[in-house]
């Protein structure tokens, strides 16, 4: 059987936490976006592990769905980030405060 399923769940939890911490402490929108992708991939790992543990295909199907949807999200996300970059603004989310009161 190899590595037990809960080991994968721990790994997925660690990856998810790392991604979430990255989103909170990094400032460059591209890096934040990569951290979000890390979170989504942690979810995929969890789905795959649970799927194998439960011997059901739902989780694997869900993981494929997540992969496809996150690809679409990346396309839109990168376009938005590039648009901000081309406006000549610093790639730093802390300086995005045009609307603070």
């Amino acid at each position, binding site marked *: 059987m190899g590595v037990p399923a809960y080991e994968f*769940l721990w790994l*997925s939890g660690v990856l*998810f936490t790392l*991604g*979430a911490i990255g*989103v909170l402490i990094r400032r460059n*929108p591209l890096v*934040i*976006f990569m951290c*979000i992708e890390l*979170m*989504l991939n*942690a*979810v995929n790992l*969890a*789905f795959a592990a*649970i799927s194998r*543990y*439960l011997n*059901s295909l*739902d*989780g694997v*199907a*869900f993981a494929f*769905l*997540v992969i496809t*949807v996150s690809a*679409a*999200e990346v396309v*839109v*996300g990168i*376009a*938005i*980030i590039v*648009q*901000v970059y081309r*406006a000549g*603004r610093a790639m730093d*989310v802390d300086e*995005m405060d*045009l*609307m603070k*009161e």
Partner: protein
Amino acid sequence: MIDTSRLGIDYGVLLPELVVTATALLVLVLDLLIPPGRRRWLAAVSALGLLLALLATVPLWGADRSAFSGTVIGDSFAAFFDVILLSTGLLTVLISPRFLRSLGLEYGEYYVLTLAAMAGMMLLAAATSLMTIFLGIELLSIALYVLAGFARRNLRSQESALKYLLLGGFASGFLLYGMALIYGATGATTLHGIAQFVGASGSSVLLLVGIGFLVVGLAFKASAAPFHMWTPDVYQGAPTVVTTFMSVATKAAAFAVIGRVFVAAFPTIRADWYFPLAFVAIVSLGIGNFVAITQSNLKRLLAYSGIAQAGYILLGILPGSSEGLAASLFYVAAYAVMNFGAFAVVTAVETRVGEGGTEIPAWTGLFYRQPLLATTMTVFMLSLAGIPPTVGFFAKLFVFRPLVEAQLWAPLAVAIVTTVISFYYYLRVVVVMLTAPEEAGRPAREPVSRVMGAILVFCSIATIVLGVFPTVVFDWARTAAALHL
């Protein structure tokens, strides 16, 4: 050969969504064929498609058709939300062309993206599986990320899109992790399967953590506190028609999911999810109503007001009864009418005055310059505050009643106190509009476009008529809230 009969293929259940999607694709193609000066017709085509989709929801009323292996359902609940969402989408499309032209943004993609977001929201209303819920949320979110940044040369619009994208992606991560944990705890991805498992074996730590993460993701989409940080900036930076659409339709769709998941799938473990949801409701009421007082920009004020309104809608979910859910559904319908109206007035003023038109000082003496806009805005403000005989009063009354019956005093007390506080900022808008402008002589009245005028009058009449005869819609809400899975 694969046996397809057990998959439950039933396109009729998804007919409204399919019509909207087909319209989106049609508009995408027509955009290439129509000369740029005639893009108004794309709005007409979109409106026609939305009307057809409204017709397609009729057979779903009173039905109970679970389809596609239990991932979607065609029932009164879905039909109720479809009608709210489609009407919102229809009115948005009608007020858009003039506003977009004033910003030089009259592109066909606007309608395509709005229709795509609509399809996602309607899928959410019909979703009975974690997979379709995720798909619906992403479909509406990705389209709205682009729409928020639609004024792409405007720095605020860009910033709003970027913030929505990054925080939205973050929230999607939590939502998905919650779904993975719920799947791990119950071994099912359909709400039916989850409800069966939970009904038989109760809750576990894994399930509760999963539900917690799910609440984070959904509360973000419903812009409920403490997951509301994006709301003011995104609402302010996005083009006002997009904000109008987003504030009403996204919230309605998010509450469709919250209602179906908590009242229908997890009724047996209400004791476990009551505290997190009550916390979100109370914090939303507090933050929304208090911070709105200090706002000087009308879009931001309405953003905080929307956070508070999300709190009121959540109150109806707390008792976990179908009576409470009916009250929430009624509140969503009322919110759609009055909040759409309020944002539509902001859109109309901004079309005339430009970007500065969303600052509250620019509204001084609006009664004397544009009596129609000011009068309808007064109706919407009174309704949002919950003053009779508007629909907002009964919406609040209906969500308070199940709380009394279930003896949930803490949320009720917070709701009543914050409602009184909210009078201050809603009525301040009315007072500002009544204040006579300083410059001597009355400025010339500028006419409002006929379509906008008609829509505003329609919304304000609906606000009052629903306030005088609330039982008609409440009976519909009651039918819709009698959920089967």
